[in-house]
C-alpha cells in the first residue's frame, strides 16, 4: 500500500484503525516532497521537523486513547497568504520574505485543533493577484499533470501539492476563481464556500467583500472533510455567519432524481476549447442520466461581472496594500533620506509588476470623484448580478458551467483573451461553488463547476458526490 495514493479520509480511517501511524503518513509525504518538490515548486516554506513532531503528538494521543480531531494525522498545505504563527508567511512576495507572524489565522487554529499536520505553506500569485501562480516572487509552480503547463492560480501551490501527492488536503483562497481554476487545471476538487461560511481572520486581504478561504481535496469527500474542519462563526470576523453549518456527508449521498439544475445561456455562448466543450456536453448527459432536470436559464447582467469585479478588487487592493510600508514589518529599503523615500523605495523594490499595476489602477479608480463613477457604480451592478442569481435560485437548486473555458496553457504564457469566464460573478454574489473533474482520464483535466445559493453548500455537495460516483 502506498500511503500517498490514499485520500485524506482513508488515511484517517487507517490511522484510527491503527493500520498506519501518523508518523508513517507524514513521512511518506515528506519523502514524496523530497522527490518531486524541486520540480513542481508547490511550496514556499516547508517545516519537516515540525510536521514530524506534530505527527508524533497525534500518535501519542491515539496511543493514550484520547479523542482526536477530524483531520487527525492528515498532511495539509496552507496557502501562503494565510497567517501562521511562528511560521514564515510571505504571500508570495519579496515584501514579506522574512515575515514571521505572531498569531494564527482562525482556519489555521482550527486545522491545529483538529489535529491536522501542516507540512508547509503553498505557492501563489503575489498577494493572490493573478490566475497562474507565475507572479510569485518564489518562482512559478508547475502543473503536476503536465509540467509544461501552469497549475492555474492564484492558489496554484495548494492545488499542485495535492495533485503531486505532496499533501492530502489544502487550504486556498478565492476572490474571483482562485480555488476553482487551479482545481480544474490540476484535476482535483476545490470548494469556494459561501462568503461568510469560513472566517477570513488571518487571510491577507485582496478584496474584503469578495475574498473567501476555501479547500482542496482529491475527491469530494476529502474536500468536505476539510471544509467541515474550518467552517463556522468566528467572533474575530464579523462578516462570518453567526451559526455553525456542518455538512453531514452521509446524508448527502443520494441520487440526483428531481434536482433542478440551471444552465446559463451566457456561458454556452462563450468561446470554449473543444475538449472543454466535449467534456461539458458529456457531463450534462451524465447529470441527466442521473435524474437531474437541466434547463437553460439566463443571467442577463453577468456580462458586466468582470468590469464590476476589476473595479472593486483593484480599488480594495490599492488600499489593502498600503499597510506594507516597511516600518512595522516587511521589506525596508536600505537607503532612504526622507520618510517618503522610505515608503517609495521599499514598496517599489518589494512589489512585483502585477501588484503595482493593480495598486495604480485602484488608485486611479478611487481618486478624485471617480469613486462614485466606478466603485459605487460597480457595487450597484453587483446588486443587479445578485438579483439575477436570486431569480434563478428561486426555481433551481444549482447552476452548472465549465470551471474554465480553456485548458491550462504553457508556463510563461498568458490566458488567450478569447477564453473568457464568469467566475468572478460567483464572488460578487457571495455564492458557493465546487469544481470537480469531469472525468478520470489521462492528461489535462477539465473542471465541472456546480454553483449553489448562499449557504446551500449541501446542494452542490450532493450534486458533486452523485456526479463523482457516476464517473468513477
Amino acid at each position, binding site marked *: 500500500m502506498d500511503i500517498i495514493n490514499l485520500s485524506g479520509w482513508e488515511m484517517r480511517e487507517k490511522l484510527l484503525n491503527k493500520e498506519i501511524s501518523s508518523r508513517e503518513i507524514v513521512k511518506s509525504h515528506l519523502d514524496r516532497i523530497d522527490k518531486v518538490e524541486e520540480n513542481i515548486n508547490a511550496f514556499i516554506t516547508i517545516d519537516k521537523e515540525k510536521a514530524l513532531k506534530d505527527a508524533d503528538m497525534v500518535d501519542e494521543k491515539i496511543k493514550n486513547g484520547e479523542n482526536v480531531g477530524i483531520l487527525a494525522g492528515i498532511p495539509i498545505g496552507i496557502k501562503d497568504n494565510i*497567517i501562521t504563527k511562528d511560521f514564515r508567511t510571505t504571500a508570495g512576495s519579496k515584501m514579506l520574505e522574512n515575515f514571521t507572524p505572531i498569531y494564527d489565522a482562525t482556519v489555521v487554529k482550527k486545522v491545529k485543533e483538529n489535529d491536522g499536520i501542516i507540512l508547509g505553506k503553498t505557492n501563489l500569485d503575489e498577494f493572490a493577484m493573478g490566475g497562474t501562480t507565475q507572479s510569485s516572487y518564489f518562482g512559478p509552480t508547475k502543473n503536476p499533470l503536465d509540467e509544461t503547463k501552469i497549475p492555474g492560480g492564484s492558489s496554484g501551490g495548494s492545488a499542485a501539492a495535492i495533485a503531486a501527492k505532496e499533501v492530502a488536503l489544502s487550504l486556498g483562497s478565492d476572490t474571483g476563481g482562485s480555488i476553482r481554476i487551479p482545481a480544474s487545471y490540476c484535476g482535483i476538487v476545490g470548494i469556494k464556500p459561501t462568503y461568510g461560511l469560513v472566517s477570513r481572520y488571518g487571510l491577507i486581504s485582496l478584496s474584503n467583500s469578495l475574498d473567501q478561504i476555501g479547500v482542496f481535496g482529491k475527491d469530494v469527500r476529502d474536500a468536505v472533510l476539510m471544509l467541515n474542519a474550518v467552517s463556522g462563526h468566528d467572533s474575530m470576523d464579523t462578516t462570518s455567519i453567526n451559526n455553525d453549518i456542518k455538512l453531514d456527508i452521509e446524508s448527502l449521498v443520494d441520487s440526483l432524481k428531481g434536482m433542478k439544475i440551471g444552465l446559463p445561456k451566457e456561458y454556452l455562448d462563450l468561446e470554449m476549447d473543444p475538449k472543454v466543450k466535449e467534456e461539458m456536453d458529456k457531463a450534462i448527459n451524465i447529470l441527466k442520466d442521473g435524474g437531474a432536470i437541466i434547463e437553460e436559464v439566463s443571467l442577463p447582467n453577468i456580462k458586466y461581472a468582470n468590469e464590476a469585479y476589476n473595479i472593486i478588487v483593484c480599488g480594495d487592493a490599492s488600499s489593502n496594500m498600503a499597510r506594507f510600508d516597511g516600518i512595522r514589518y516587511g521589506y525596508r529599503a536600505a537607503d532612504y533620506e526622507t520618510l517618503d523615500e522610505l515608503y517609495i523605495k521599499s514598496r517599489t523594490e518589494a512589489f512585483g509588476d502585477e501588484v503595482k499595476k493593480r495598486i495604480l489602477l485602484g488608485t486611479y479608480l478611487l481618486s478624485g470623484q471617480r*469613486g462614485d463613477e466606478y466603485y459605487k457604480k460597480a457595487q450597484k451592478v453587483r446588486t443587479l448580478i445578485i438579483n439575477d442569481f436570486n431569480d434563478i435560485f428561486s426555481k433551481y437548486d444549482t447552476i452548472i458551467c465549465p470551471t474554465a473555458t480553456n485548458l491550462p496553457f504553457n508556463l510563461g504564457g498568458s490566458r488567450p483573451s478569447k477564453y473568457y469566464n464568469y467566475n468572478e460573478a460567483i464572488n460578487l454574489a457571495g455564492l458557493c461553488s465546487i469544481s470537480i473533474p469531469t472525468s478520470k482520464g489521462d492528461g489535462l483535466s477539465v473542471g465541472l463547476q456546480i454553483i449553489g445559493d448562499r449557504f446551500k453548500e449541501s446542494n452542490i455537495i450532493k450534486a458533486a458526490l452523485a456526479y463523482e460516483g457516476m464517473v468513477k
Partner: protein
Amino acid sequence: MRYKTIIGLEIHVELMTKTKIFCSCTNEFGGEVNTHCCPVCLGLPGAMPILNKAVLEYAMKAGIAFNCNIARNTKMDRKNYFYSDLVKGYQISQDDIPLCEGGYIEIESKEGPKKVHLNRIHIEEDTGKSVHTEDGDTLLDYNRAGVPLIEIVSKPEMNSAEEARLFLEKLRATLKYIEVSDCKMEEGSLRCDININIVDMETGNKTNITEIKNLNSFRAAVKAIEHEEKRHIDLLKEGKNSEKETRRWDEVQGETIIMRQKGGAADYRFAVDGDILPIEISEEWIEEIKNSLPELPHDKKQRFIREYGLTEYDAEVLTQSRDIALFYEDTVKHIDDPKLVSNWIMGDVLRRLNDEDLEVDSLKFDSKALADLIKLVKDEKINNNTGKKVLRDMFETGKDPNSIVKEKGLIQISDQGELSSIVDKVLDDNQQSIEDYKNGKDRAVGYLMGQIMKATRGKANPQLVNKMLVEKLESR
C-alpha cells in the same frame, strides 16, 4: 465694523471607552510604549476590525447633546493616506454618511445667546505617536493607534476669538458632563484646529482660509485667532491676500508659523471598508441613549436659577462644569443656604482653582468640609476674614476646618464680658484716640478697631466690637 472675522472649528475628541474602537486593547492613556497593541490596531496583515458598540453609544450621546440628527444607516470608510503613525496606510473614518449630522451649540455671546451650528460629528480611529530624537531618528509608539475619536466640525459661524472660546468651553463642558471624554488638552484627548478668514465688509473682499494647528489650550486658541485676525486684516489693508495654508501656533514666539501650503484638495480616495458591515441604528436604541443622558448644562442652569434662587450669572458659572455643579449641590446639601454657598464657591474656591489652573477634583477637601467652614462663619464662630484664612489652610493641607480653628485657637470672641474688658483696656491705652473721636475724627474708630483685633489676634466678633466701641466712646 469694517472687518468681519469668520471662524470654523474642527475638534477631535478621544472617547473614554474601556477599549479601542476596533479591538479589545485597553484605551488607557499612556502605558509603556507599544504594549497596548494587538494584530488589529497594529494593522498586521490578515487582522480584521470589529467595531466597539460603546463607541457608537458615546458618539450618539454627543450627537444628541448637541442636537444632531442621528443616522439610521451608516457605514465605515477608509481614508487613504500615508503617514508613519498610521498603521494601515488608511484611517478608518466616515465619509459621506456621518453618524451625526447638523445640530448646534448655544453660546452666551456679548450680543446674547447665539447658536453655532455643526456640520457633522463622525467616528474614526486615532493614530500612533512619533517622537523625534536629537539624532534625527523617529521613534514610533502605537499605543494610541485605534483609540476612538469623534470629529466635530462646526460651521464657520463664529466671529471672534471670544465666541470661539465660548464655543470650545461649552463643548468641553458638555462632553465632560455626559462623560464621553475627559477632554484633557494636555493629554491630547481634545484637539482643535481652527479655520479662519476675514471679510472686508466695505469692499466684500475675503482673505483665503488659514488652518491653524498645534493648539495646546483654549488660551492658545484665543491668542492664535487674535494673531491671525490681525495678520489677515493687515494683508487686506495692504491690498494683499493670505495664502491657502496650514499654520501652526508657536506658543513661545506668540505667533503662527507656516507649516505647508494647501495645494488642491487632498485626494483621500474614500471607499467603504469591506470588513465592517453597514451599521443600522434603531429608534429604540436612540431613545435608550437619550434616556441615559444626564442633565445637560443648559437644563441644569435653569434648574439652579429656579431651585436655588441664583442669578443667571451665578448659575452659568456654577454649571460650567459638571464637577463644579456637583460640588455646589453637595455643599448645599450640608448647609441649606444656596446663596451663601454660591458666594463662597464662586469667590474664593473658583478664584484659587483658576489661578492655579486646577480642576475641582484636585481639591484636597470635600463639600462637607466646605459646608462646615461656611457654617462656622454663618454661626459667627469665626469672622469672615478668619474664614478665608482657614480656607487657604484647607487648600494647602486638606485639613478639616473645625480642627484648624481649634488648633490655631481661631474661635471668635463673642463673650460680652471678655470683649468689654478688652475694649476698656484698649481705650485706656489710647487716650489720644478718644480725644480725636470727640473732635469728630471718624478715623479714630478704625484705628481702635485695629488695636482690638490685634489684641485678640483677629478673633473678636467685629460687629459686636464695633457696637461696643462706639457705645463706650460716647459714654467716656
